């Protein structure tokens, strides 16, 4: 038993509750579920990027041993509507301020008349085993009439391009524009201007557990139970209730242990709806476990932008004007709307003060896998542009990159700082707290200082070795709304039972929310029960996306706890015949202040508060110790970080070796520093993967070239450099705990930090790395310009 420290649990690296079951192999993931009478689903997926479906015939498929049921997209389209609810409508404050034209295509659950990307499902088969289901899928006779594949997003938006969604009539399905100041005038007047094109490649969340859905329908009660490897159980339930015409309360959606998500499981996918539909339709439980090839083909990809940016500045390196026009290659559909695209715009200014800014965006559909948020969600793309430009400005003026950054940074004295643009929640962006220059200075100090590095770099160059220093800074809106829910109760045992809409995917939520709750109630942490990712425990919830759960769930837990504590104190006052004002919570009891022997346990209070003949609650008070709160954050709270890395590139191979990587990160007060550290470091390695190894590649016909782990390369322990993370802890004034979100931060900066470091290393050759990922062959080519 961990004794409650006088200072509480928040701020301590409390060991994780989750570890024991996971270490023993007792975790339960969707693929581990066995339901009596269960059949296994497998999908038939398009092998063509773009084609009309001529016919789909299941006769041979149903002759396969073990085949139980088959269904095509056309039939399903008559039964279930397209996914519609994910296209978040724009809040007024945003719609008023941002010029926009948005016509997003609906996504049928399975392709009915045409397939639009390699991997899009057009039929599903259920069979006795996954083996048999795959046999049956192979035996489907389907005929397609190929259409021209739209692969290049720039060509897609040009006149004459094949149209991916004829009903919409254009491949540019969304256009956004926002401006502050007068960019054209300021740019024209600027003493220096540079313009560059930046490309951020497509890569993906790639959790080690692929997706999966299992569902069981109970005909007696007309109710569904659905297990999904998702970050948004309540969202899945909402869509299911709509699609199946059922009451939400008749549907229970749970996420059991989830093997990573990183945003890739953060929206409702067609399979989340199809599998429950099949369970109801055929009257047997159905389990679908996505395999890795399917996952790479079909789970959302991310990033994939082309930016044309221009920056105007003076002789001292002050930025006077900044304009960025970019294209987002959304793939065939846009499952979460234009939110990611605008997120890029909103993060372009980062920690810098710039009076004149404009961001213009076109979201373009192509015949590729749909693009959706993944850890960073539009921010790595923005930070690539801004942070490369900072280095280019420095290079143009012969200044140190750090100096240009510090010259433009917003100092702590300007907090809170109004950016002059709306956030996607419609609220004007306001950086709430932090010391950006201090974080950059600290990062530089941790990496050994700029001057010392330049000395080393010069010496190495003389020996034919090439070292580079890369910097990268960002700000990150975290804890976004619209809301999160929590129900808090003191049950008959006296334990505090908390349920909230957060859906953990490995972060340690059970531990973190136990800490928050134990402190709110002044109880030993063992007396807190945390229930997560189960719609049956909470009426409305939102889910774990967008670096929000510690902020939003904690606040909802705090608020609901306050309501229940008021009841507890009222009941305890009656029991102790004392005034509520004289009572305090301590060690799982309510005691009279200064007279600890005068106390009642929470168990006794719960018994007294219960309804019925034995109730001893005060006259007129409501029975039970339970309350639900929905926390609606006023807006986001801004985390930020500064990064520094040293790389060495090998002249004969172009191989990039990261010698050291430092991130100075500020996410406000840390509930569990050890877990926070793990979140940031894990994110950093995903960013390094994106910088150097991971890339989703298509050929000109829209065929995916990286459909296995032999071609889509996740970094391993051997590729991972020594990483140091320094946590600054500037609390936010926006929530009672002073916490900011930190799930995504680590992944944001590494691609541009490595690009800057490699460019710095190769400065004698005058090559800029403005395209991601950094490929060794391009590095090698820099040494040998003749080739």
């Amino acid at each position, binding site marked *: 038993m961990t004794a409650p420290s006088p200072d509480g649990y928040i701020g301590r690296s409390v*060991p*994780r509750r*989750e*570890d*024991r*079951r*996971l*270490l*023993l*192999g*007792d*975790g*339960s*993931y969707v*693929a*581990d579920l*066995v339901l009596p009478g269960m059949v296994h689903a497998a999908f038939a997926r398009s092998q063509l990027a773009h084609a009309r479906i001529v016919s789909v015939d299941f006769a041979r498929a149903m002759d396969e041993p073990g085949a139980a049921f088959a269904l095509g997209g056309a039939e399903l389209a008559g039964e279930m509507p397209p996914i519609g609810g994910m296209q978040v409508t724009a809040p007024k404050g945003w719609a008023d301020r941002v010029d926009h034209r948005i016509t997003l295509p609906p996504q049928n659950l399975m392709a009915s008349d045409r397939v639009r990307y390699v991997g899009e499902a057009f039929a599903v088969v259920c069979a006795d*085993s996954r*083996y048999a289901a795959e046999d049956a899928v192979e035996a489907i006779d389907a005929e397609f009439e190929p259409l021209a594949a739209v692969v290049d997003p720039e060509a897609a938006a040009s006149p004459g391009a094949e149209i991916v969604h004829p009903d919409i009539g254009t491949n540019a399905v969304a256009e956004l524009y926002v401006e502050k100041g007068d960019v054209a005038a300021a740019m024209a007047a600027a003493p220096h201007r540079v313009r560059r094109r930046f490309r951020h490649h497509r890569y993906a969340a*790639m*959790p*080690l*557990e*692929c997706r999966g859905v299992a569902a069981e329908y109970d005909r007696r009660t007309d109710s569904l139970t659905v297990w999904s490897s998702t970050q948004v159980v309540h969202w899945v339930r909402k869509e299911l209730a709509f699609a199946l015409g059922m009451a939400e309360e008749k549907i229970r959606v749970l996420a059991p*242990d*989830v*093997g*990573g998500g*990183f945003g890739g499981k953060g929206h409702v996918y067609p399979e989340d709806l199809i599998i429950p539909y099949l369970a109801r339709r055929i009257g047997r439980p159905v389990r679908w476990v996505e*395999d*890795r090839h399917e996952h790479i083909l079909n789970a959302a990809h991310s990033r994939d932008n082309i930016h044309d940016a221009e920056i105007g500045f003076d002789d001292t390196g002050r930025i006077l004007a900044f304009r960025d026009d970019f294209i987002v290659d959304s793939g065939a559909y846009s499952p979460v709307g234009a939110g990611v695209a605008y997120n890029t715009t909103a993060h372009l200014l980062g920690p810098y003060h710039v009076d004149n800014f404009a961001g213009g965006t076109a979201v373009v559909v192509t015949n590729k896998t749909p693009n959706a948020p993944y850890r960073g969600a539009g921010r790595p793309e923005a930070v690539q542009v801004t942070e490369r430009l900072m280095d280019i400005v420095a290079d143009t003026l012969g200044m140190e990159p750090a100096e240009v950054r510090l010259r433009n940074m917003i100092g702590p004295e300007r907090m809170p700082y109004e950016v002059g643009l709306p956030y996607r929640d419609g609220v004007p962006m306001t950086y709430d707290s932090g010391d950006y220059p201090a974080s950059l200075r600290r990062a530089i100090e941790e990496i050994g200082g700029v001057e010392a590095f330049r000395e080393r770099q010069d010496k190495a160059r003389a020996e034919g070795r090439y070292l580079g220093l890369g910097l990268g800074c960002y700000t990150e809106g975290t804890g976004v709304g619209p809301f999160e829910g929590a129900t808090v109760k003191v049950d008959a045992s006296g334990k505090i039972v908390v349920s909230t809409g957060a859906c953990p*995917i*490995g*972060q*340690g939520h059970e531990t973190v929310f136990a800490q928050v709750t134990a402190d709110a109630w002044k109880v030993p942490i063992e007396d807190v029960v945390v229930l997560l990712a189960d719609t049956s425990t909470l009426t409305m919830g939102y889910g774990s996306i967008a670096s929000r759960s510690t902020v939003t769930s904690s606040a909802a837990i705090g608020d609901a706890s306050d309501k229940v504590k008021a009841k507890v104190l009222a009941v305890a006052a009656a029991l102790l015949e004392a005034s509520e004002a004289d009572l305090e919570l301590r060690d799982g009891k309510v005691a009279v202040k200064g007279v600890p022997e005068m106390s009642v346990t929470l168990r006794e209070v719960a018994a007294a508060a219960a309804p019925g003949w034995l109730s001893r609650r005060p006259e007129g008070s409501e029975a039970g110790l339970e309350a639900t709160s929905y926390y609606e954050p006023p807006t986001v709270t801004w985390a930020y970080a500064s990064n520094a890395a040293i790389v060495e590139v090998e002249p004969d191979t172009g191989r990039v070796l990261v010698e050291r990587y430092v991130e100075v990160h500020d996410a406000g007060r840390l509930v569990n520093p*050890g*877990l926070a*550290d*793990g979140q940031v*470091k*894990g*994110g*950093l*390695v*995903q960013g390094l993967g994106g910088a150097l190894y991971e890339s989703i590649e298509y050929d000109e016909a829209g065929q995916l070239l990286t459909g*296995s*782990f*032999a071609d889509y390369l*996740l970094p*391993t*322990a*051997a*590729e*991972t450099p020594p*990483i140091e993370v320094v946590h600054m802890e500037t609390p936010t004034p926006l929530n009672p705990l002073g916490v900011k979100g930190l799930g995504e931060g*680590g992944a944001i900066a590494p691609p541009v930090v490595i690009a800057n470091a490699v460019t710095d290393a190769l400065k004698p050759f005058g090559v800029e790395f403005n395209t991601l990922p950094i490929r060794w062959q391009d590095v090698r080519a820099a040494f040998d310009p003749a080739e």
Partner: protein
Amino acid sequence: MTAKRSVTVTVNGEARTGEAEPRMLLSDFLRETLGLTGTHVGCEHGICGACTVHVDGEAARSCLMLAVQADGAEIDTVEGLADGETLHRLQQLFSKHRALQCGFCTPGMLMTALDLVRHRPNLTEAEIRSGMAAVLCRCTGYEGIVHAVAEYASGGER
């Protein structure tokens, strides 16, 4: 000859028998037939390492073996590591060093590390990083894993 056949393996010291089509992968036999779902399947082509178990005492990918090939073999899985309620020392070190987050790769990490430490004494950190590169982790960034294995290797029972 495509018919199911009987497969008997000694799993974590206990003889277990099940039926398997020749094409059934050992990973599926362990998980679906014997109900040992601690062994996870992350790629089914031998890269991710989540499904790593010990076959006759040595780490191997259970997704790259047929169940029928394991007939008569001794298989050790993550479920066999703890001694009753007491976690194996490496399991304890994984928790101590925060070497797991979502837990999906963890069984493969543990089984790989145990074999690595036994296979090669006096591991350097570079050798640990290279050896543990046999298993992919998407959550932790590997630091905790490397530290846990290093501490185990330096004082662990071999």
